[in-house]
């Protein structure tokens, strides 16, 4: 436990800035919104004015809250994905880049603990930061929507939890995929990952055209089967003013989260994680 704590602390000390990118971005947005509100207020504009002519029921306002929380969590999660990709490369290759690989490899730390702590930091770190930042956002938005428009406060938290879980899995999956390539390439792993996919795509196209084969597209497979995410955009098209349809929307959200396809994604993530760790173990120290 002492070793694990020290390993996490080291990763925290060396990747803190990247890990907290969503926090900085959110603070920046709050600052911008704060300034905008102050300026608007000084000119006599009230926040409720934008809604004054729209006569809608509580359901629509609650759905508005749902969509707002969903949208802000989604935006934050994109920054968290960037953060996870950068950390994935850094935890594996940062020591070599900073010429301190030997120091870290000269400690009596079992390899599963070492690689496990790196993987956990790369994946859980951004997921937890996303969770914390988006929870604060959802509380702020829910408080505002319920106080000003009378929307159901709890629905904001449901939106947060569903989007966080769904995007958390996506962070884990994309992070693990980049972690795998980070273990293969010590330098510019993200770029090399892109190049490798393009090369394989060209190879597949060439083989298909020469031999008349029908090998499926790799990038197509990755984008539609592995890295894709179903956030239920189609369900948003339902009429918003009925509680039952709202309930269906939320229920469908839970089914999407606890689905076989997500379980499969979890499996892919673990497979990428283990494969990356094994490749990392085979590296020779310079």
């Amino acid at each position, binding site marked *: 436990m002492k070793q694990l704590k020290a390993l996490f602390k*080291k990763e925290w000390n060396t990747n803190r800035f990247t890990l907290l990118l969503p926090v900085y971005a959110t603070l920046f947005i709050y600052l911008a919104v704060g300034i905008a509100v102050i300026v608007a207020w000084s000119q006599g504009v009230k926040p409720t004015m934008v809604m004054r002519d729209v006569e809608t029921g509580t359901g629509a306002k609650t759905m508005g809250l749902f969509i707002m929380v969903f949208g802000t969590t989604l935006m934050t999660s994109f920054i968290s994905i960037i953060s996870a990709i950068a950390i994935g490369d850094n935890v594996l290759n940062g020591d070599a880049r900073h010429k301190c690989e030997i120091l870290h490899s*000269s400690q009596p730390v079992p390899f599963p603990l070492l690689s496990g702590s790196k993987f956990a930091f790369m994946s859980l770190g951004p997921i937890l930061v996303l969770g914390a930042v988006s929870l604060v956002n959802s509380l702020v938005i829910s408080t505002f929507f319920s106080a000003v428009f009378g929307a159901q406060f709890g629905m904001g938290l449901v939106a947060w939890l569903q989007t966080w879980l769904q995007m958390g899995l996506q962070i884990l999956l994309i992070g693990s995929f980049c972690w795998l390539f980070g273990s293969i390439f010590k330098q510019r792993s993200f770029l090399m990952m892109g190049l490798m996919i393009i090369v394989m795509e060209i190879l597949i196209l060439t083989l298909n055209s020469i031999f008349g084969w029908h090998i499926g597209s790799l990038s197509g497979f990755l984008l539609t089967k592995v890295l894709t995410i179903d956030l239920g955009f189609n369900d948003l098209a339902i009429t918003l003013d009925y509680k039952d349809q709202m309930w269906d929307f939320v229920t469908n959200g839970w089914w999407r989260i606890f689905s076989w396809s997500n379980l499969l994604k979890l499996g892919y993530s673990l497979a990428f994680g283990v494969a990356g760790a094994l490749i990392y173990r085979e590296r020779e120290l310079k």
Partner: protein
Amino acid sequence: MSETIYRINGLTKHYGKFKALDAVDLKIGKGKIIGLLGKNGAGKSTLMRCMLGFLRHEGNVELYGGKVARRNHRIFENVAFIPDVSGLDDRLTVAQTIDYVRGVNSRWNEERAAQLFALSNLPLKKKVGKLSKGMKTKLYLLITLSLDVNMLLLDEPTLGLDIAFRKEFFNTILGEFFNEERSILISTHQVEEVEDLLQEIIIIDNGRIILHEDVEALKERYRVVSLPSDRSAEILAHSPKVTSKTLGFFSAVLDSRVEIPGASYGRVNLADIFLSVVGGSNETA
């Protein structure tokens, strides 16, 4: 515990087609300070890295009778290593570095660390990247000396440091680390500075161990033979690998059994022995 710390048999390492180590056999006992000498690219660093399980290799490396597997963390419960470059993590502060090793290394001795760091003037809040090379080496040394290990591998640890610091470095190691249970293997450029410390030397050339002997016995086995320059042929008749001319005299390191009438004899130092064994320029790293 065994008298032998390391036992190496038939250790061979290839980098592509290049053979960096060629069937190295070696035994390192406890309570020894051993110098590892060799020219650039002779295989010193590769040998140490194989001993630490960092590299794939052929042959057998045993530590206290157990096979050294690649990237086996248990090696570092007995061995500490200071590499040839400032290998500390420059992203961490001094305090974070100490805290990190304290946390991950089960051999950390808190009491000894407190004593060692109390005497040092290391700026704890400063980033390692902002420290001078001397400070970095000092930090690495103090961290290493805070570990309860029995074997210390030093790969050119004082490279690029001034003479006063180099003296202090080796004195600290002698005073704080060495005892009859512990051994040190030092690869260094400055043979003269560690000459008095060493009990054994290992000379490696082209990946092969060409000499492993007790220093005193070695100094008995060789001596410097000098003759007036006009009699140089009498020395050259013994095929010395390296000769020198100074103030009308011609000198070479020869076997102590060689007797030349009228010659003067002097005690050899390790640099002389190294050159006489390996030949070439006076470059022992």
